[in-house]
């Protein structure tokens, strides 16, 4: 079955074929197309004509599926016969915040079964917000003899037993990347399942597991995996143990330390400092749990070429941060806790002129007893010192319209602007006005804006601005905002590139929902919870758009699952 897009281009097939006969054999075309990596480019290419569609599908080795419910594994396997690497995303993002019930779905197993049959030479699997069981992990481990890379982020349903199966069976494993997941951490013995003969590991990330691992086994593993370039430890690994590991792995490019706090002798401290500074390739540093001013100086010499510093698990004070940053002139990405306060952020502005990304997380989001954290002043200070800033995630307790206007004036290149004023519906604390003008300034000034998260007291005006000015916006997150349907209608009527819209606790109802029918065709997903949409509204939507996955619960629809961008064309088969 061909989509309407293909039908339209059929007219050009003839000219395409004649051109082909005169210049391009298939093999050449496939070879050329195999150099295309971006899945969006590939989608475009596949629409040119039938020959290109075929050449593209035969040459594609990596498939990205942004919404696992938008397509079935059988369809994927039928279209792309030569896949070696799969990236799958499942649950809506709000599942990270407990807004999606358990057993919602996004189970990987059916996909694995199809892959085992169709892609026996599968090498890589990267999952985000999928449900994966230990049985599935074991099935994965034994079904793909060439399996190389497993990356799990925000997944759940599995335990360390599943990791043991991977370690045991995957003889060619190069990457085991277990990021923040809902993993059942039963114990650290999985690490000991790597066989003695196993030497291929390049990436090992178990930073977010809590159990103790057998350090001797880890030391031996790191010692024999000479190509290891990424090692992220969990907090059970002490400073002294870290030193022993680094001595054997100075080639590391990315290091996540364990606990950064221990009573060390002078000699031990110096050995640690030396081992760290010997890592000449180190460009990423994280971990640093419980790091204090006492031992941070051990890092100074190692930070010269650092481009990414993740301090989001180390509650540093402003002075400690300032001293550390003085040694990080190349820094491009920085994640910190708001314990560093505005003074710490001033130091960021002073020391990191190349900074492109800043994330400030709240150290104590629920503590109401004291005034703390960062304010608009810190953000402004960074914007003055870091003109290249284009990605920010900022949790704060107060903000003003004027400050945001200044910030985007200093940094007009924002592509990702995620501002979370933690008190829902809070106005500009100086003027008591809504924060409409702040986000208005963002969308007017930052023409490259792709992702926006809004917060604070917002009227429909914010959404008028967004709809009118945010021409490149792809992802929008809204909570506790807006006044009426008009707000959401503005967004759906504007924002030509909108792909993902997530809304919670806003007064948007059926009229707003149904105003986006045309829009949903080109979007990946829409989430609405605790809004004013009713079940009837959802029914209407589903009836008007039969190819949409519409999911609703209790009159408050949660996830309208829409078409994935993978195919680049309309979904052609119903399932």
């Amino acid at each position: 079955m061909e989509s309407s897009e293909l039908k339209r281009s059929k007219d050009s097939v003839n000219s395409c074929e004649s051109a082909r006969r005169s210049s391009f054999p298939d093999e050449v075309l496939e070879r050329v197309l195999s150099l295309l990596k971006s899945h969006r480019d590939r989608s475009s290419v596949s629409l040119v004509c039938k020959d290109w569609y075929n050449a593209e599908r035969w040459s594609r080795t990596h498939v990205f599926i942004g919404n696992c419910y938008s397509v079935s594994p059988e369809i994927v396997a039928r279209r792309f016969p030569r896949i070696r690497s799969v990236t799958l995303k499942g649950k809506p993002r709000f599942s990270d915040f407990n807004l999606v019930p358990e057993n919602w779905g996004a189970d990987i197993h059916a996909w694995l079964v199809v892959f085992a049959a169709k892609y026996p030479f599968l090498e890589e699997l990267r999952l985000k917000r999928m449900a994966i069981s230990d049985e599935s992990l074991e099935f994965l481990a034994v079904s793909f003899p060439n399996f190389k890379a497993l990356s799990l982020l925000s997944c759940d349903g599995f335990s360390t037993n599943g990791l043991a199966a991977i370690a045991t069976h995957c003889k060619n494993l190069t990457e085991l990347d277990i990021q923040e997941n809902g993993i059942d951490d039963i114990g650290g013995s999985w690490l000991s399942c790597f066989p003695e003969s196993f030497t291929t590991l390049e990436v090992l990330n178990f930073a977010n597991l809590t159990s103790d691992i057998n350090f001797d086994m880890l030391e031996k593993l790191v010692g024999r995996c000479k190509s290891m370039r990424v090692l992220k430890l969990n907090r059970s690994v002490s400073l002294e143990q870290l030193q022993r590991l680094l001595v054997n792995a100075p080639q590391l490019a990315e290091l996540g330390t364990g606990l950064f706090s221990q009573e060390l002798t002078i000699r031990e401290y110096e050995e640690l400092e030396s081992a760290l500074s010997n890592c000449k390739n180190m460009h990423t540093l994280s971990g640093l749990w419980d790091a204090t001013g006492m031992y941070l100086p051990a890092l100074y010499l190692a930070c010269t070429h650092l481009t990414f510093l993740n301090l989001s698990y180390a509650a540093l004070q402003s002075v400690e941060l300032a001293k550390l940053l003085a040694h990080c002139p190349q820094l491009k990405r920085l994640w910190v806790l708001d314990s560093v306060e505005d003074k710490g952020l001033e130091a960021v502005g002073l020391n990191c002129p190349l900074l492109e990304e800043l994330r400030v997380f709240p150290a104590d989001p629920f503590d109401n007893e004291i005034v703390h954290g960062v304010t608009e002043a810190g953000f402004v200070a960074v914007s003055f010192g870091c003109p290249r800033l284009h990605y920010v995630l900022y949790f704060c307790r107060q903000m003003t319209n004027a400050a945001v206007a200044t910030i985007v004036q200093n940094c007009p290149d924002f592509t990702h602007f995620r501002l979370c004023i933690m008190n829902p519906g809070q106005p500009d604390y100086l003027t008591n006005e809504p924060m409409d003008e702040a986000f208005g300034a963002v969308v007017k000034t930052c023409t490259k804006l792709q992702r926006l998260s809004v917060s604070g007291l917002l009227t429909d005006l914010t959404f008028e601005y967004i709809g009118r000015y945010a021409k490149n916006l792809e992802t929008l997150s809204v909570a506790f905002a807006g006044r009426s349907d008009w707000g959401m209608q503005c967004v759906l009527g504007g924002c030509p590139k909108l792909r993902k819209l997530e809304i919670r606790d806003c007064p948007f109802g059926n009229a707003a929902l149904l105003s986006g029918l045309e829009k949903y065709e080109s979007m990946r997903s829409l989430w609405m919870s605790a809004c004013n949409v009713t079940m009837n509204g959802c029914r209407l939507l589903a009836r008007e758009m039969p190819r949409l996955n519409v999911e609703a619960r209790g009159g408050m629809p949660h996830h309208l699952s829409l078409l994935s961008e993978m195919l680049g064309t309309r979904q052609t088969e119903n399932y």
Partner: protein
Amino acid sequence: MEGGLVLLGGGNGGGGGSSGVSTTESAVLSKVEVVSEACSYPAETELELGLGLSLGGGGGGSTGKTKAANSSWGECGRILTAKDFPSVVSQRTNNGGPSSVTVSGTKRAAESVSHDSGSPTGVSQVVGWPPIRAYRMNSLVNQAKAQRGDEGDSGIGEKDKPKDALKKKLIYNGKQTSSATVNEKGYLGFVKVNMDGIPIGRKVDLNAHSSYESLAQALEDMFLRSANSLEKEPLTMASKLLDGSSEFVLTYEDKEGDWMLVGDVPWRMFVRSVRRLRIMRTSEANGLAPRFNESNDTQRSKPI
């Protein structure tokens, strides 16, 4: 195509696989209001819907089974959101002052207006807000607790050379980490809690409690006594989870995977071994622990 209410059935049949059907939730009618109490939008008539909470066509099968065991709490078939819990915020505040947050236990913003920082206090305890991933939330809580416990050597010192500092410190070859405090308090942090009949679980921070009473109270507040509950029938649960008078009991899964009744072992032992909690219907909690079995039959009263 009326398959429009594809919802959780056919529309996802061919999709990325379905998870197992939960047997406690089911496709049973339930009533829901869509209007938030905090806002004054026109009230919608209550809706009835039939849904399963699992995906992939399993909804129908379990309907018959659970329909029989009806209780006021069963088969909610809906997501509990901020609306079901103590009200968060009035979005339409007057323009006179900073918005105040009305949540039990948090300070009202008005009280902090006089401070020069002017920042309202209080992020209220809204479900899923602020939007921080659970893993990070866990880590932060444990970190905060560890630091408050370690006030003696916060290590924030303005010392210039760490080596000088080391000279002053006790020098020893100890291999132990100084994280004893942290480990003692446990990196357990949040554990999941599910209650029969409620699709969405919660997480409770065990480190915030030092006794069973305190934990039970928190759970009761979380699940059984929501101020804005939309359930029409009055809850009969003035009773407690721990004394057997409630129609629910509190159970936990330990590290070996066994389900036990909460309260049998000393608190600290419990904290070290608990993996997750479940508020279980008394009728289903048979044979969990000797103590329970020994009790007389009145404790196994059937819920309505």
